[in-house]
């Protein structure tokens, strides 16, 4: 936890109500707040990604060293985007500013900054659209809500487009389905075209484009990391599990976010993958080329997203697998569900996704040939192919946090709950308006999982933290399960900040705890090393 974030008691959430004229005035470096703005991208990260005009500046400096013809480039790309993306064009045109989205954004709730209302975030770029691409804006200017494109406006875009976690909660409530995430995503792509971009995502994108995973691990590093996961499995269960890596001719390719074999609490979910696949005798393989399910390119630009998700299919082809299973991850599943097939498909060289254990045909993945681990596990449990001992999770009172992307981008709501209920005796839902399609973001998604904006993240996570607090106080919940790698990384800090004794796990960790393996020793601890309390 960084020192500079003020303690929760001192935070105020006062909403400021500016006039519409004030809203048209750009927020510039003079008003940037520490803990809210991102560091600037480094040359070494964005140059290999063909992002032009790489330069290293401090966003707090007055001159952002924009290229001389930045305005033409930006507007040219704007026009190009309007032509390429109907959603973007329609969303520019049809907003009626009804305000239904306003208090749906966790950043608005957490900061009270009026420009964090989804509608206002979109207005930042919509005002430019009106000025340069509509008659009314050209003629009536400010009265039509239009404003000139200036360097200050670019600064404002940089500041506010990187205060959005692309969670799509606003889109859920918008009567026209205006998806601020889409506007922001393509808006960031526009900023990229003039070399205005942040550091965090590009570190991972560059690493992933080069090595196949966001962490930049080399093949042997991945394999050995997985090996040590298997060692931990042995320590807890006494079972030796194999970790196939790059194995040609395996039936299934398994792709998980790289954090799963690197960070905690992801690690424990990864242990459970290995245990599960060992237990059911699945013929599968990990890959080092496609060693990343996550796709930070989906936070930045279409082309960058394609750069990363292409590898999954290429590797599947290379290894000659039949189909693909994907691990727990949030934006990864937005990418795999909604983007990958379009960007890098068709996957016609793969075979139908049929579970070799139960014979179930995953019809909903008929074309992409990629099945979510939760769907796969739910199917196994349904067919009684694995033995589970629920009581091994009795020390956890579990709640489930629907991660934004699997809920509003995939519609994966019941499978995780089915798995949790099959593995745990104590499961409690958070308040109705904070789960399922109305779920709150952890506050750190969409490229915001970076240290320098800690205050924003903690404020943005406030609604989720309050919902967790509610179930913690009411039911004594001490474990928040989720299926998102970013959640797992973000929540421990959030819970610590808001002083909630709630731990975070992937739901596969609960599965691993409950899974009865052949030849296992009597377990002394659960996967994360918490000793089981004994009656005697």
């Amino acid at each position, binding site marked *: 936890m960084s020192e500079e974030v003020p303690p929760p008691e001192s935070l105020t959430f006062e909403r400021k109500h500016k*006039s519409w004229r004030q809203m048209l005035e750009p927020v510039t470096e003079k008003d940037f707040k520490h803990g809210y703005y991102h560091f600037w991208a480094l040359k070494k990260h964005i140059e290999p990604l063909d992002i032009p005009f790489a330069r290293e500046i401090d966003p707090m400096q007055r001159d952002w060293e924009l290229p001389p013809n930045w305005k033409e480039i930006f507007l040219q790309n704007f026009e190009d985007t309007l032509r390429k993306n109907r959603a973007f064009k329609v969303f520019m045109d049809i907003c009626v500013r009804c305000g239904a989205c306003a208090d749906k954004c966790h950043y608005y709730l957490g900061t009270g900054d009026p420009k964090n209302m989804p509608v206002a975030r979109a207005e930042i770029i919509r005002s430019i659209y009106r000025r340069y691409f509509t008659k009314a804006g050209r003629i009536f200017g400010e009265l*039509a*809500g239009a404003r000139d494109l200036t360097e200050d406006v670019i600064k404002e875009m940089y500041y506010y487009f990187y205060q959005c976690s692309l969670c799509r909660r606003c889109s859920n409530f918008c009567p026209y389905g205006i998806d601020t995430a889409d506007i922001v995503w393509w808006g960031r792509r526009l900023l990229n075209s003039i070399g205005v971009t942040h550091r965090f995502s590009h570190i991972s994108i560059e690493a992933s484009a080069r090595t196949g995973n966001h962490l930049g691990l080399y093949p042997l590093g991945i394999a050995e990391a997985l090996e040590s996961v298997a060692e931990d499995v042995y320590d807890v269960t006494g079972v030796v599990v194999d970790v196939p890596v*790059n194995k040609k001719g395996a039936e299934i390719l398994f792709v998980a976010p790289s954090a799963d074999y690197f960070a905690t609490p992801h690690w424990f979910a990864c242990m459970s993958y290995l245990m599960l696949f060992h237990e059911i005798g699945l013929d599968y393989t990990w890959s080092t080329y496609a060693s990343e399910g996550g796709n930070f390119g989906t936070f930045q630009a279409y082309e960058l997203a394609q750069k990363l998700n292409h590898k999954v299919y290429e590797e599947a082809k290379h290894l000659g697998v039949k189909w693909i299973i994907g691990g727990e991850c949030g934006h990864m599943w937005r990418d795999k569900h909604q983007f990958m097939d379009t960007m890098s498909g068709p996957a016609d060289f793969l075979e139908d996704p049929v579970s070799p254990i139960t014979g179930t045909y995953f019809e909903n993945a008929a074309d992409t040939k990629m099945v979510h681990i939760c769907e796969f596990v739910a199917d196994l449990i349904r067919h009684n192919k694995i033995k589970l001992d629920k009581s091994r999770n009795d020390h956890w009172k579990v709640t489930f946090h629907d991660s934004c992307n699997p809920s509003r981008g995939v519609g994966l709501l019941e499978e995780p709950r089915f798995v949790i209920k099959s593995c745990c005796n104590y499961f409690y839902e958070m308040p109705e308006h904070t789960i399922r*399609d109305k779920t709150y973001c952890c506050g750190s998604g969409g490229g915001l999982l970076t240290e320098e904006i800690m205050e924003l993240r903690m404020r943005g996570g406030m609604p989720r933290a309050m919902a967790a607090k509610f179930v913690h106080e009411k039911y004594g919940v001490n474990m928040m399960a989720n299926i998102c790698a970013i959640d797992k990384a973000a929540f421990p800090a959030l819970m610590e900040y808001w002083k909630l004794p709630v731990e975070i796990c992937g739901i596969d960790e609960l599965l691993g705890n409950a899974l009865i393996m052949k030849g296992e020793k009597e377990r002394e601890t659960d996967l994360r090393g918490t000793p089981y309390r004994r009656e005697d």
Partner: protein
Amino acid sequence: MINPFLEIVVPYAAFAIFIVGVLYRFVSWANSAVPLKIPTTSGQAGTLPFIKRSFYDRIDSPYNKWEVALRMLAEVFLFRSLFKNTRYYQSRHEHRDTRWLWGFAILFHWSFLIVLIRHLRFFIEPVPEPFIYVTELIALKIWVPTIYITGITSLIGLGYLFLRRLFSGNERTISLPSDYLALILLISVVVTGLVMRYIYKIPLAPVKELALSLIVFQPVAVDVHWLFILHLTLVSITIAYFPFSKMMHAGGVLFSPTRNMPNDNRKRRHVNPLNPPYHGITREEYNEMYKDQLEEIAERDYNFRPEV
């Protein structure tokens, strides 16, 4: 001189602008490619057979085109997404369903639609008996002339939409002059209509004659009351402004990719007509880059068993 202009030229010009403008908007939206299938899934997706999907899941997370049609109908006619609206109470961190906006929005839109349909009696001749019967169904027969509830409720709806922009902090912040303009135009149209019906009554026969003559393209500059000319001019301004204003949301919602696409992404592939080719490291290049390490993995027979 002024009459032919306001009674014939202005309405025709406005109507032409309306038709051409709306078609232009439709075509311009359709001219943009749809790169990705991005439905907002607000319910359980179609999945394994034992995972039950409720009726609402089918609407909110449609799995085929029929369910998409249902979703669009619910969106267009019932404002389903707006119906889900909640309000966050910061002081006690609590959410409540809030349907004021939904209620008044639906009050206005439905009332206004019924008012528009009832206006058909000025545009068609002979007026069929069943048409009159149906449009009079919800009229309040406690007064002469009969009180048309919808005329009044559309004004109430508009009034709420206007006042919330003035008095609610969030809305005042995000409201642009054009938002007020659209509301003021509609309010003035409704008010002039109501005045003519209930307060300052005007002869109807010339009005209908003018309307008919316009609609069959045999325009006659009939001598009508000035109040009606005011009403007609306001309507003309509104419909001419329609395609270039936020009122175009009526057509735009049909083009919204987060609502009009099925959530069957993994089942049926969506093709992006402008999909760029892949630029990046291929598997062969990767093999070259990490040759030593990959060979070491091969030496271990692609299997990493922990040493215990």
